[in-house]
């Protein structure tokens, strides 16, 4: 059909069939609301396709990569966790089992994943233990190192440098400290006539040893954020408090801590997210892996990756791990936002 009505005289719905229609009509891609930066156009220009597609082309590489390596694998993880896989000599197609994989994880007599409950408990203790000690220590360090001391740069470096080390490198310093026979801590203990401990070999001590090592590694990193937070608090608030006769600890309780609440929330979210992922120290502190009392979830997944029969279980474990990260993140937000509302 040849249409003689000019394009702009047609209602928008009819323009689609007009032979002079631009291939990508503006209405498909642009938002209806006017942008303050848009200038009124005096001349009707038929813009090339490229202009409409440009923003999509600009974000395409990032979006594609994030999709391939984060979004799609996340969806696949959930999907695969509902299947049992039968690879091997005569492979069978995967069988849908619903939530059976998750149930198996919590079955302590299961032949493959009987350790899971132990590992999950370890991971929770390790992460919560790291967070509840490293954040107060970070605050203490920040308060102490936000003062005038001779050689301030050195002392700040001394507490911050563990954050720069690879987790496996940081842990190998501690492998030497924790060593059973020739380790430093035991050498010092015996020189005082005390009994040395097998820090990373004893099932009751290994988790604590790994947690202490991680507290040491993270505290200086979190201190940086508290330092930045402290330095953004205006000085005159403290001068006013001084005039009112408030002592140091009153100022700390009623001024500093409330003003650092945002920093604390941020650090809690970051610390929990990192805590669940920090497992590389186990490469160096292997003592705890003997009976799984010191193993952590991500490392457990990593160790079992080579056997394809575990595929369904590994994905179920990953879902649980990601779920934990999300729960702790959301819980922190809910808890802190609610407190903020109460205060008005």
């Amino acid at each position, binding site marked *: 059909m040849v249409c003689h009505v000019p394009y702009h005289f047609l209602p928008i719905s009819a323009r689609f069939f007009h032979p002079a229609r631009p291939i990508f009509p503006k209405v498909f891609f642009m938002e209806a609301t006017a942008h303050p930066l848009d200038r009124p156009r005096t001349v009707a220009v038929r813009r090339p396709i490229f202009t409409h597609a440009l923003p*999509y082309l*600009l974000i395409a590489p990032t979006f594609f990569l994030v999709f391939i390596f984060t979004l799609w694998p996340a969806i696949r*993880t959930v999907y695969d966790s509902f299947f049992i896989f039968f690879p091997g000599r005569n492979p069978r197609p995967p069988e849908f089992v619903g939530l059976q994989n998750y149930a198996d994880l919590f079955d302590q007599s299961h032949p493959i994943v009987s350790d899971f409950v132990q590992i999950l408990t370890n991971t929770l203790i390790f992460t919560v233990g790291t967070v509840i000690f490293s954040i107060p220590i970070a605050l203490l360090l920040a308060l102490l190192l936000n003062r005038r001391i001779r050689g301030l740069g050195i002392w700040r470096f001394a507490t911050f440098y563990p954050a720069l080390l690879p987790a496996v490198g940081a842990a190998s310093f501690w492998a030497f400290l924790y060593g059973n026979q020739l380790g430093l801590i035991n050498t010092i203990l015996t020189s005082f006539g005390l009994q040395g401990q097998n820090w990373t070999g004893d099932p009751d001590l290994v988790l604590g040893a790994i947690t202490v090592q991680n507290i040491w590694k993270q505290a200086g990193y979190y201190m940086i954020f508290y330092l930045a937070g402290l330095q953004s608090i205006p000085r005159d608030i403290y001068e006013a408090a001084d005039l009112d006769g408030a002592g140091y600890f009153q100022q700390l309780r009623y001024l500093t801590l409330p003003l650092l609440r945002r920093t604390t929330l941020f650090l809690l979210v970051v610390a929990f997210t990192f805590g669940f992922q920090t497992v590389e120290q186990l490469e160096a502190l292997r003592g705890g892996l003997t009976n799984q009392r010191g193993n952590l979830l*991500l490392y457990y997944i990593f160790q079992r990756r080579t056997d394809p029969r575990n595929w369904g279980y590994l994905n179920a474990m990953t879902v649980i791990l990601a779920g934990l990260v999300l729960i702790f993140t959301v819980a922190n937000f809910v808890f802190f936002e609610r407190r903020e509302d109460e205060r008005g």
Partner: protein
Amino acid sequence: MVNTRRNGWSVAADAMAIGLALLWLAPLIFGLLMSFRPQAAPISSGNIFFGCQSDLSDQQQALIDEREAGRSITFAGCTVTRSNYDAAWSLTNGQWPRFFLNSLIFVVGTLAVQVVTVTMAAYAFARMRFFGRNVLLFALLLQLMVPTGLLIIQNFATIRRFGLLDTHWALMLPYWGSAFGVLLLRQTFRQVPYELEEAARIDGANLAQVLTNVYMPLSVPAYIAFALVSISSHWNEVLWPLIVTRTDTARTLTVGLSLLYENSDTGANYGLIMAGTILVVAPLVGMFMLFQRRFIESFASSGIK
């Protein structure tokens, strides 16, 4: 909070600060000392510093003199040796320079591509209006909530399907798209005055010229922050390189360090392990010392490792 009055409290706080800092520094110091000790002079009570011979027998001393000849210096009864570094170097068939190069390729290659992808996406999200902008931005930000590091199993399968195992591409690919970088630069780009872009456009600049001549120079601090965070986190990456590398072609320094644990069946040869560790951490700690102030500001402003 800065208390200018010197009183008992402030002296106590100074002492506590220095005490804690020394406590934090102790593992590094003892690791360094250990890496220079002769292997034949194990630490024992009263002898935790250099291999001072106070409690060594003549036989042990003879052994040290024999093994460490030409690699050590002895003064005031203490032996300082470099044999641990030699041993760590040769333990992985002299592959350390290769591991170092691989780490460098991984870090630089990741950062170089990230800068390009992130700049483009950040500009689109900061200054362009298009259908579905907020939905797409939210989809990207999911990466911050479900970290790529958790998805090692599926990503390993993807890399294997692409046939990229044991290559540098396998190391870098998952990190090329950075939601964190997009977010950081989007915030920065929004603070660049639009009039500057307009002026450049009137002068006939195209998009690439606007980005390289207006936005990027004005956002240098944000790029430095992003670079430092990206470099330090990828230099320290262990699990992912460990999974996707099988031979020395693409192994990084941190993988080499893990191998040191697997290959050294001597058990408690801490001197060797400390030497290997120090070889791995030295570049980044050195860089930190050069850019200390910058580093701290970057970490504080970015918040993601």
